[in-house]
């Protein structure tokens, strides 16, 4: 089933496009009014982010509209880009080369292939069970023991965060919910709430942010930004309940879970960046950093939302 025939999906995308037009207009006005040097830098970064949002929204909309396969391919590519950023920062060595080849060229495509053939059972355990063993054994065969646990655990983490967790977003497409057949809307709901939450937390943080949540890990994340952004994003989620199988109250609750998990994901990925001594995972998306910087919230939110929906809404 493609998204072309679904009016609710079209309305969601139209809503996002209207938002982007408004954001672009606001960005232009701010750029005119910015007087001081730091203000100009902030606005320039903001406008770079908005421009990147246009590209990301268009790419995502096209992928969703093609129905299942486009979304699966898009998220597989996102996993690939995220994993490459993750592994680049990881303390892997020459001896881990084969392990990494397995991860990139077998485990990652297989995980998304399992979604394409709707094999949920193996999808849910392939990485936590088989890839877990494979990575450890492959590193043993390579025969280097110094920092063995660190090197092996890093690849495990990379696969879990960048592949396993992210793959739960397109896996929403294979959930069988009685009386609800347009699963692409669930995917849009998840991505919309996660990203709106990121944006609103950024906005609330810039406007009202005072008390940092975890100053050592991420000085930019404040209680004001987090609570304001998460609450506002959850209200947005509740407001688009009509696109989901949820009643408004449930849509709100789901959105709260998504924003909480997303916030946790952002903090954890920041901690890893601090540990490796970098600010961003990459330079892929202008103003945003790398792929992993953009989808850090999604990494944690996707599996949580997937399993909440699966537990409560599938037989």
């Amino acid at each position: 089933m493609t998204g072309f025939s679904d009016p609710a999906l079209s309305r969601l995308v139209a809503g996002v496009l209207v938002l982007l037009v408004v954001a672009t207009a606001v960005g232009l006005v701010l750029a005119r009014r910015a007087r001081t040097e730091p203000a100009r830098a902030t606005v320039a970064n903001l406008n770079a982010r908005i421009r990147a949002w246009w590209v990301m929204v268009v790419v995502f909309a096209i992928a969703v509209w093609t129905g299942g396969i486009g979304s699966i391919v898009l998220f597989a590519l996102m996993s690939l880009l995220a994993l490459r950023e993750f592994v680049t920062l990881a303390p892997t060595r020459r001896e881990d080369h084969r392990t990494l080849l397995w991860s990139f060229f077998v485990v990652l495509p297989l995980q998304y292939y399992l979604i394409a053939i709707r094999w949920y059972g193996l999808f849910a355990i392939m990485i936590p069970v088989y890839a877990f063993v494979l990575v450890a054994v492959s590193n043993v065969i390579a025969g280097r023991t110094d920092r063995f646990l660190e090197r092996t655990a890093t690849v495990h983490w990379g696969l879990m965060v960048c592949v396993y967790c992210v793959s739960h977003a397109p896996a929403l497409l294979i959930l069988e919910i009685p009386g609800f057949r347009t699963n692409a809307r669930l995917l849009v709901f998840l991505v919309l709430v996660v990203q709106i939450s990121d944006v609103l937390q950024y906005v609330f943080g810039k406007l009202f942010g005072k008390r940092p949540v975890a100053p050592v890990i991420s000085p930019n994340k404040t209680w004001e930004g987090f609570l304001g952004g998460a609450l506002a994003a959850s209200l947005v989620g509740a407001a688009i309940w009509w696109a989901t199988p949820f009643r408004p109250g449930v849509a709100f609750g789901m959105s709260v879970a998504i924003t909480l998990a997303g916030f946790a994901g952002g903090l954890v990925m920041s901690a890893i960046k601090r540990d490796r001594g970098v600010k961003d995972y990459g330079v892929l998306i202008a103003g945003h950093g790398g792929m992993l910087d953009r989808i850090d919230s999604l990494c944690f939110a996707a599996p949580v939302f997937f399993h909440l929906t699966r537990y409560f809404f599938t037989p």
Partner: protein
Amino acid sequence: MIASILASAARLVSGASVFYLDEPPDEAQRVYFANHTSHLDFVVLWSALPENVRPLVRPVAGRDYWEKSALRRYLAQKVFHAILIDRSRHTEDGESTLSIAAARRTIDRLAIDMGERDSIIVFPEGTRGSGQQIAPFKSGLYHLCREKPGLELVPVYLDNMNRILPKGELLPVPMLSRVVFGRPMRLEEGETKPAFLERARAAVRELGEL
């Protein structure tokens, strides 16, 4: 055509972000010299040059390696117009078998092949290293500067290539890398060979520490 396809492929695989400390290289004749850890090094460095400069930049590579198979010969001669040189081979007791006279001839040939227009890419370590540290430079760089007074040398640091495609591996892991171009340098008046080679090596190493 094939060259730019290969360059794009190498850029894609190596996810290279490019930094120029100075202005981006122009079409002036230069020697780009870099650390060497991977088969990807030359193509990625080449692809990091501005498009109008690339056709003028040729790799200098070992004849023994690049004439081994028809494919390698084709790539070296037809695609990248490589300047192939005879590397010193080491006998079992570690003695270099290439005489000083032969080495001199190699540099003479190199200078002639470059002419007044072509730039070159060289890896003065002579062979691929492990990526841990940069090996001492061979003296060809110095002799070439003597041969062509005033020649500008641009140090380049290639980061992470050895993790993407280490020595002895066939398939690359698509990690991210960096190509950092430093400021041009030249052989100073009266500079000795060891001092110059060490300065050149330090220039590459410093780019890696940025």
